[in-house]
């Protein structure tokens, strides 16, 4: 700990978390006060939030550390692994690579917003049925990319599922099960809509 410089210490949400637990003093308090912040309106899983965010906070940080939505994971924090994937206005993005201020006025869906009225999304059901997750760390991101894919392509081929999920790395290597799960969910949804028609 002694090696951490003050600048690194006050970086990111570290400053916010410290502020709630330790009274800020002297230099650190001034530095934190000087950090530019903005009030934003985010609609997350159907609920409107007005939040005062530091301009540098990523959407992933705000979702996890300030709204308590820890379903989205931070793996790499560099837009490489996909664990933080959420839907922004219906499209899958890396929430670690979006600033929360850029999402002002926009709609966010996280993995917590998939189940409706206590009923799991067909994708979640299929992930359970087909053993999609192994350790589960990448799973919420996989679900959100699958959701985005089915939103604009309800009947994907195997190759389309693979292409749609290339932005989500699974270190357990459970890719084939994830692809099977998504295809199964698409089949369930198709059967459901036939039944309704």
């Amino acid at each position, binding site marked *: 700990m002694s090696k951490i410089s003050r600048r690194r210490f006050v*970086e990111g949400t570290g400053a916010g978390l410290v502020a709630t637990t330790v009274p800020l003093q002297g230099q650190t308090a001034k530095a934190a006060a*000087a950090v530019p912040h903005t009030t934003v309106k985010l609609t997350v899983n159907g609920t409107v939030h007005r939040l005062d965010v530091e*301009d540098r906070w990523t959407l992933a940080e705000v979702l996890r550390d300030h709204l308590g939505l820890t379903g989205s994971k931070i793996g790499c*924090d560099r837009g490489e692994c996909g664990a933080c*994937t959420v839907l922004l206005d219906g499209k899958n993005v890396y929430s670690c690579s979006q*600033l929360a*201020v850029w999402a002002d006025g926009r709609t966010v869906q996280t993995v917590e917003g998939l189940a409706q009225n206590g009923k799991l999304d067909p994708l979640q059901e299929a992930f359970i049925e087909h053993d999609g997750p192994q350790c589960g760390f990448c799973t919420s991101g996989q679900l959100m*990319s699958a959701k985005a894919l089915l939103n604009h392509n309800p009947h994907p081929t195997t190759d389309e599922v693979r292409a749609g999920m*290339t*932005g989500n790395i699974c270190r357990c290597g459970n890719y084939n099960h994830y692809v099977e799960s998504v295809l199964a969910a698409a089949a369930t949804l198709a059967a459901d809509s036939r039944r309704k028609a």
Partner: protein
Amino acid sequence: MKSFANVNARDAKDAVAKLGQPNAVAVGGGSDLLGMVKEHLVEPDVLVHLKSIRKLDQVSAKAGEVQIGGLITLDTLSREPAIRSRYTVLAEAAESVGTPQIRNAGTLAGNVCQRPWCWYYRNGFPCFKAGGKQCFSITGENQFHAIFGGGPSFIVHPSDTAPALVALDAKFRVTNSDGERTIPAAEFFALPRVDAARENVLAQDEILTAVDLPAARPHTRSTYHKVLDREAWTHAVVSAAIVLEMDQQVCKSARIVLGGVAPIPWRLPKVEAMLAGKPITPELAAQAAEAALEGANPLAKNAYKVPLTKAVVRRTLLSLATKA
């Protein structure tokens, strides 16, 4: 992350004015820039957010010419019917970038202006790109570095859309404090021997606002072929953007631009000239591939790019010319 203020630009002029503040940088989708800030490779006090500019994310056609707003996302661009059908090389290049999440966030202008992904630069080595005085790849791990146009830096230009735009003879619209200037795509990119710290001719307070494509000529076909070290997710090891104007079996004119091999999109005027007016046979494609690699100057660990690039040129040319 280091703290900074995010300011939303209202229009291109406003963005340029805001970029005049001390230590301000432009940001589109942020898929490249935020990573650089997190790594302390860029330490801005102000981010000028361009995506807040309205209407700069659209494709419009005027007298056959097509104008593409620089803030269009790569995903939207790759699905645009007018681009897919008449400027296929650009749609395919945009579609080949990274992952769906990158394409949903990343903009065309950001793709063209992204910084090099040389692992020395990205890992904090004080190289030319970081304002230093050496290129660590020359004696180091250079398997993904330049075989053409290198020195004093040996980065490769990372953009997939850049070779496509040069092959299409696009014009770049640049906004600055005096107004606007237009630069042919090929002249937008600059070799390290011109300025080793940068990849293009933009000044700090200039932004790329739009790209103009000339009217597509009849009987023109085009494609982008990208070779990766895996099936998806990353930058090109080698790529080829090819535009052919055909008259039955005969190639009237050709434009061939390589990615992944040089610090700028690498055009092959000599090869283009040898194809003009001839039917593209397997023999001619093989000769073109040989000519394409004349003057290549590989480093210790990237000589494999020479035969790889030859194969890419020969196969892509032949399959495009003979496509039904």
